[in-house]
């Protein structure tokens, strides 16, 4: 009973925040709404007996990724989203896609409801940090290593992207240009 009530509370909050994220034109409001979604999802993970994933969800999504996004919004001092869209057909496309996906969702809902009810496994070992850690470093060692390499690549890539082009080179070009012009004159 309590579980159901909590689920509907957090699910409602998550959906409301998700809609408000898409609705708001101001990127900062969108970001705050998205943090709301993440936090309510994290609460749902706790009710699903996955405390490790819940904590990591808050730590990585709410605490690291969204802080970076908000930092970029503040750094670039972004205003509201631009006005009317130039590509009008996208609205029809988006609406159509939304309807199709919703229909699919309800189909899945009914199919799973009608199928034999899977009893939830009450052995709570699945969410324990120890079990996850053991699985991570024995059975799934290769994916973990690949993710590590991916993160290293991301670090190097973002440093390369954020690096400013060397300023002196530009000055030399300008000087050469002006020299050339002086010669022409």
């Amino acid at each position: 009973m309590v579980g159901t009530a909590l689920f509907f509370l957090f699910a409602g909050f998550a959906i409301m925040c998700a809609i408000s994220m898409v609705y708001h034109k101001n990127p900062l409001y969108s970001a705050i709404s998205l943090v709301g979604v993440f936090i309510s999802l994290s609460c749902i993970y706790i009710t699903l007996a996955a405390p490790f994933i819940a904590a990591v969800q808050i730590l990585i999504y709410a605490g690291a990724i969204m802080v970076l996004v908000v930092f970029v919004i503040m750094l670039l001092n972004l205003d509201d989203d631009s006005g009317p869209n130039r590509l009008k057909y996208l609205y029809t496309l988006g609406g159509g896609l939304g309807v199709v996906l919703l229909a699919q969702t309800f189909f899945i809902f009914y199919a799973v409801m009608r199928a034999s009810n899977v009893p939830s496994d009450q052995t709570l070992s699945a969410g324990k940090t120890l079990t996850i850690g053991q699985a991570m470093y024995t059975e799934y060692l290769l994916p973990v290593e690949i993710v590590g390499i991916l993160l290293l690549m991301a670090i190097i890539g973002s440093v390369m992207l954020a690096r400013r082009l060397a300023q002196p080179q530009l000055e030399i070009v300008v000087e050469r240009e002006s020299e050339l012009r002086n010669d022409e004159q």
Partner: protein
Amino acid sequence: MEPSLASYLALSGILFTIGAVGVIFKRNALGMFMCIELMLNAVNLTFVAFSRYYGDTTGQLFVFMVMSVAAAEAAVGLGIIIAFFRNKQSIDVDEASILKN
């Protein structure tokens, strides 16, 4: 009483739909980025729900992988957005049309 597996899947589907529609409707790169994060989270929810109902750790491990990939994506994606803003003074994706004509 606990909510059934189907209700978790329904919530995940609704969140995914909102995210997918948002990617199409949003015009600014940060908004699209956030919608993609929402879709990733919807998928994570199905993983955790299945992991709970079948008592298997693998689902949660996949969530962990998805989160790591999302973090890498955030680092590179935000770097690209900043580089784009430096050139265009805007992050509207419609502005990224240099290759047109």
